[in-house]
């Protein structure tokens, strides 16, 4: 029987972490050498954790599915990373960052975790700067900042439109430093396919070597998952094509509870779908909304070229509906507003499924050069993909699946409900509630990896100093490997006609239509039925050419898609249970008269944590009540 214990320490909010940390047990330097830690994932979270743990002297093994750790999808983050430095003297503070995240998350996150993330944010920026990350600077040589959606201060540090790349390459460099020292051993081109449990504790993983196809056993005293988000459940998303839920899902199947699976952020500004073979949507960073104005024609079905529609003919609907925040409303609000306009027939482009993001006024006021300096690479990217020059005419944008607030449930130590199994970065659920504020993920991932996990994991490992090496020759490893091998054989043996991508695309459409930006009970139930049907079809008609003992990209895809059916079902189940609208989760049945999200704090101020009960059985719902002592629950208004 699982009992959720969040382990949130007592004491005043601002002192919780420092007091708690001071009481955590340590492992002395000589003993650290006797302890092995596995980290799966090399994004900001995983690579940060691995290098910090390596520096401390542990033996670390790190895994990623790409050919190099530098290619983790953190590399694609564009806009920026938040910190409460208050460099602008605009009255920013740790408390204000905490407050913005709580409000932005629509009061569905834990106060203590969010405060801690805000608290370590300044250390993260300092560490990146010390590692040589080239953040933007002003003429005096100090770090520059910009504003992001949902806040009224300027606290976002950035490196043009490549902030994620620069932060990840900084983190990658710290990882390389440890690899060179021999404290960290890197295993690229590996898919982690299962967690190995020995006596109720996570003690290893089973991986598939993607070049040889061989299954491998790796043991450790603790396992850290930093495997990113599962937004690819929609097929079309802003994530890398290899992003998946499978690593986290294997933990879920072994008893790690999964929290708020349906909280998934739809980003308002991505380049719309242009052709039927498209498998990826490219994000246009939120930072563009600092200078770009969002509009649609006032007349339904106005087919004139954007540049020919005069001011009077334009409806700047965000500025109209939300005068206080205008174009910088949070993502969930901006996405739903775009969908509302398009569904009402005001959308632009061939499909009518897009709106304009216009830089005309900004260019007139600041000059083209200033805009190029800020967003040059994004404008180029847009032009490459669409063939249209956004300096001359507005961009067309539409919402796309982007970020998963939901993830593995973790306690204050970032440990899942499986002892010794940790989840950090986007793969956990803890800091963003029902909606994530821009630029706070890079911050959380780096905070988790560099500054939080290394402290909490030592406390757990202090009990393992006499355990000695964990053998991979024991039954637990054999069994786990056999289960993985059986699953692979089962997929290979189907010998059907349809490709994994084709199934993935259909699955994505079911999720987008039934569990996307707007949800209702009927649609969610229908979605679950459709998923079950499609899953049955998958297991009778999937086609994987070649063998499993070689580099086989179709097999890799099929294994990931097979898990997405279950992920999708759990998302629908979770969305159905939550009879309220909050953050990115919008239920048609629960809205205000003006069409805004209507929360139900009396009945739903909890984290929904699901426990696996077997492949066909309904998962069990656990509720972690959320307590709010430092923020007042308000209607989230950006008007």
């Amino acid at each position: 029987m699982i009992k959720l214990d969040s382990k949130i320490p007592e004491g005043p909010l601002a002192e919780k972490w420092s007091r708690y940390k001071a009481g955590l047990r340590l492992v002395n330097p000589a003993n650290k050498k006797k302890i092995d830690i596995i980290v799966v994932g090399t994004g900001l979270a995983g690579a940060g954790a691995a290098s910090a743990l390596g520096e401390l002297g542990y033996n670390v093994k790190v895994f990623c599915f790409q050919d190099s750790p530098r290619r983790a999808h953190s590399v694609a983050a564009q806009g920026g990373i938040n910190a409460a430095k208050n460099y602008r003297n605009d009255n920013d503070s740790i408390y204000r960052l905490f407050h913005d995240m709580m409000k932005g998350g629509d009061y569905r996150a834990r106060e203590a975790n969010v405060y801690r993330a805000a608290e370590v944010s300044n250390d993260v920026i300092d560490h990146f700067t010390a590692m040589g990350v080239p953040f933007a600077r002003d003429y005096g040589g100090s770090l520059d900042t910009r504003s992001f959606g949902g806040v009224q201060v300027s606290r976002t540090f950035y490196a043009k439109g490549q902030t994620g790349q620069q932060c990840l390459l900084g983190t990658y460099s710290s990882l390389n430093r440890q690899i060179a020292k021999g404290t960290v051993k890197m295993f690229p081109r590996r898919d982690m396919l299962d967690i190995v449990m020995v006596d109720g504790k996570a003690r290893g993983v089973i991986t598939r070597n993607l070049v040889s196809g061989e299954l491998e056993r790796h043991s450790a005293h603790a396992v850290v998952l930093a495997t990113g988000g599962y937004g690819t459940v929609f097929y079309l998303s802003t994530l890398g094509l290899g992003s998946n839920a499978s690593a986290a899902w294997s933990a879920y199947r072994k008893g790690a509870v999964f929290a708020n699976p349906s909280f998934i952020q739809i980003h308002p500004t991505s380049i719309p779908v242009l052709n039927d073979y498209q498998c990826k949507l490219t994000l246009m960073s939120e930072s563009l909304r600092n200078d770009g104005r969002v509009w649609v024609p006032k007349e339904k079905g106005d087919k004139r070229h954007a540049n020919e529609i005069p001011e009077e003919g334009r409806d700047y609907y965000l500025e109209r509906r939300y005068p206080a925040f205008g174009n910088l409303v949070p993502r969930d609000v901006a996405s739903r507003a775009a969908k509302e306009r398009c569904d009402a027939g005001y959308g632009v482009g061939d499909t009518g499924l897009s709106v304009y993001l216009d830089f005309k006024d900004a260019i007139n006021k600041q000059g083209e050069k200033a805009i190029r300096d800020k967003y040059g690479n994004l404008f180029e990217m847009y032009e490459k993909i669409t063939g249209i020059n956004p300096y001359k005419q507005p961009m067309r944008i539409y919402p796309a699946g982007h970020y998963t607030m939901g993830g593995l449930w973790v306690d204050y130590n970032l440990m899942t409900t499986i002892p010794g199994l940790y989840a950090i970065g986007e793969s956990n659920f803890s800091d963003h509630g029902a909606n994530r504020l821009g630029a706070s993920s890079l911050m959380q991932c780096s905070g988790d990896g560099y500054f939080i996990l290394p402290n909490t994991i030592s406390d757990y490992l202090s009990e393992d100093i006499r355990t000695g090496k964990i053998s991979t020759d024991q039954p637990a490893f054999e069994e786990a490997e056999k289960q993985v091998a059986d699953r692979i054989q089962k997929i290979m043996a189907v010998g059907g006609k349809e490709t994994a991508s084709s199934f993935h695309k259909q699955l994505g459409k079911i999720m987008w239509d039934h569990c996307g930006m707007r949800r209702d009970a009927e649609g969610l139930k229908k979605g679950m039925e459709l998923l079950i049907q499609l899953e049955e079809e998958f297991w009778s008609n999937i086609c994987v050419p070649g063998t499993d003992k070689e580099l086989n990209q179709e097999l890799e895809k099929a294994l990931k898609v097979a898990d997405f059916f279950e992920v999708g079902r759990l998302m629908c189940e979770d969305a159905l249970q939550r009879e309220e609208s909050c953050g990115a989760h919008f239920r048609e049945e629960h809205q205000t008269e003006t069409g805004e999200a209507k929360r139900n704090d009396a009945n739903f101020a909890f984290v929904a944590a699901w426990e696996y009960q077997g492949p066909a059985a309904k998962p069990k719902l656990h509720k972690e009540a959320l307590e709010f002592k430092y923020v007042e629950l308000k209607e989230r208004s950006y008007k």
Partner: protein
Amino acid sequence: MNFTLKIWRQKNANAKGSFQTYPLKDVSPEMSFLEMLDYLNNQLISQGKEPVTFEHDCREGICGSCGLYINGRPHGPQRSTTTCELHMRDFKDGETIVVEPWRSKAFPVIKDLIVDRSSFERIMHAGGFVNVNVGCAPESNSSPIGKLIADKVFDAAVCIGCGACVAACKNSSAMLYAAAKIAQYAMIPQGKVEAKERVDKMVKQMDTEGFGFCSNTYACEFDCPKGISTDFIALMNREFFSSKACKQKHA
């Protein structure tokens, strides 16, 4: 649009590879180059054949995974563009398109169009970092860096580690890749302290991996999708020679 594709097929690292020809019909000009390969693969699979294996992930020009040698050019005909950012509208209807993996001794083929770029990793292990531990960073604004230098540092830092520079070079030199990292750190106070040792170690590793020397043809800069400038190679060379000189002085 219709195309004839000539694609390098090679079962694994030890097998002998060869070109195979595939006619492909009804390609949309809106498709990206990799979507066109997906489309081909779908047809191959439905014909019971093995799909073409190629590397990719972000599909937006930032992760550096993709990299194909297309019609004799790394990343194809468009400048400042990665393979995944290429679109079929950039090609002529009816064209024959030749697709190969990167060719370099230091990048052995793993399968079809995928090569092993771990030699790039080892160059970074040799010195592509600043020696600073978590927790000992000073306040960020305690060492200002002027905007002009910061911008130049950024220009060096945008390398995506794709390997096109090596594929473009007749000597398979990795100078541009290494120089970008060496220059990024040499220009800022955080990295300056160890600049000499860094350049020594990274250059040595390049040689060990079997990358060739630079003979100043600038093909790398021309084909680099991120426009990394060969000025950084000059900067690296300055660092390198002064580091040797520096050692001799101490000897």
